């Protein structure tokens, strides 16, 4: 079982990926969701780039578009976790999962 499966089984996400310096390092986005990944990646990187100018300590962003929620979590200064989930997902649970499994994500 991968970490993505664990999150999917817990009903937290549809799919996710790790970006290293803006490039996809590991992903479970299916081929048919390529466009959604591109959207999530561009939008969240844009948000963090803009917000970092004011406060670098914000490490979590969520963009709700219709039924979809695109979430970005900074793992460290180089790595960004990106998730696609249902719009009403409990994001506190995703945050908790990341905190509990940070090492697993870093090893991807």
């Amino acid at each position, binding site marked *: 079982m991968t970490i993505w499966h664990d999150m999917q089984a817990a009903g937290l996400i549809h799919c996710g990926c790790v970006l290293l310096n803006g490039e996809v390092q590991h992903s479970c986005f299916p081929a048919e969701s390529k466009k959604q990944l591109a959207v999530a990646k561009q*939008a969240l990187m844009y948000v963090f780039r803009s*917000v970092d100018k004011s406060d670098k300590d914000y*490490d979590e962003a969520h963009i709700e*578009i219709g039924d979809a929620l695109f979430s970005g979590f900074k793992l460290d200064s180089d790595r960004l976790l990106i998730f696609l989930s249902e719009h009403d997902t409990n994001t506190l649970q995703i945050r908790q999962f990341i905190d509990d499994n940070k090492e697993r994500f870093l090893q991807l």
Partner: protein
Amino acid sequence: MTDYKVLFTGSVCSGKTTAIRSLSDIETVDTDARVSDSAIRRKRKTTIAMDYGVLDLSDDARLHLYGTPGQERFKFMWEVMMSDLVHDAEGLVLLVDNTRNDPFKDIRFYVEEFRDFIVRRRLIIAVTHSDEQAEPDHDYYMQELKAMGLFTTVIFIDARDPSSVLKIVKELVGHREKEIAWSELEERLAVNSSMPQVTEEEHESSSADMSENVTLLDAAMNTRGITGAIHLGADRKVLSSNVSSKQNKELLRSMINLVTALETKASFLGHIDDLVLCGPQQETLSVFVEKEQALGLCSDKELSINVVKQQAMDLLQWSQR
């Protein structure tokens, strides 16, 4: 004896409790508590679990009236009611407050939430508060609902007036219960009327007092965990703000601009409902951007984002009042 059940739902202040009180032959069972969120703009008490009443239609038929709480944070009760108490209901009455800025947003939301429930049941849309806000009118509702693929009945009612609310009952069970003496029923229920016994002038003045007393910012701050709010107009100039931190205020404004920029740069995305930023020690910042207005909220990081979203939705829907 034939027992029918009907479930009333709709946004906060749409008139669910009042409609059930208007129809009930018994003292209604309600679960009112002091309002502890943005609904303070409209009322002082709200339903937190459910409303229940009973209407004797005839010697052989009875209608059980159930009402959900309006706030989305009590959504678990919607589930409990749908799966248990009213799983065998005749229909769902969706009360729509005509004073909301976009009543169709509420319709889309509730139809989606109750989609599985209404698949095999009647859906009746009952528009309330049209005495305060006449538009959209019946024709406009029918036209918009048709465009949404919803072919259903729309009735304009005054939830305080039993004879008006009875129109829903007629629509729901009238074709099956031919023995109901509607005029007698109407007379009997007249005692439940909560129509104001004041002149129109006095009524208008008291309504104005209510909304003037609680500003949008005051209403936002009435939710425990919300620590600041900023309201911007269509030109993105600040209409009002009580965000004390200069940095947070600037961040909220730049987030609103970010949403607009993202929507412009990637128009295929569609409308961005909200953007939320969180940090380990920081207050959570959320922005909700519409064409005519935008709202930014600061909140404690422990406060669920879904609660913040619901509050923002209600605040924006009542912003013109």
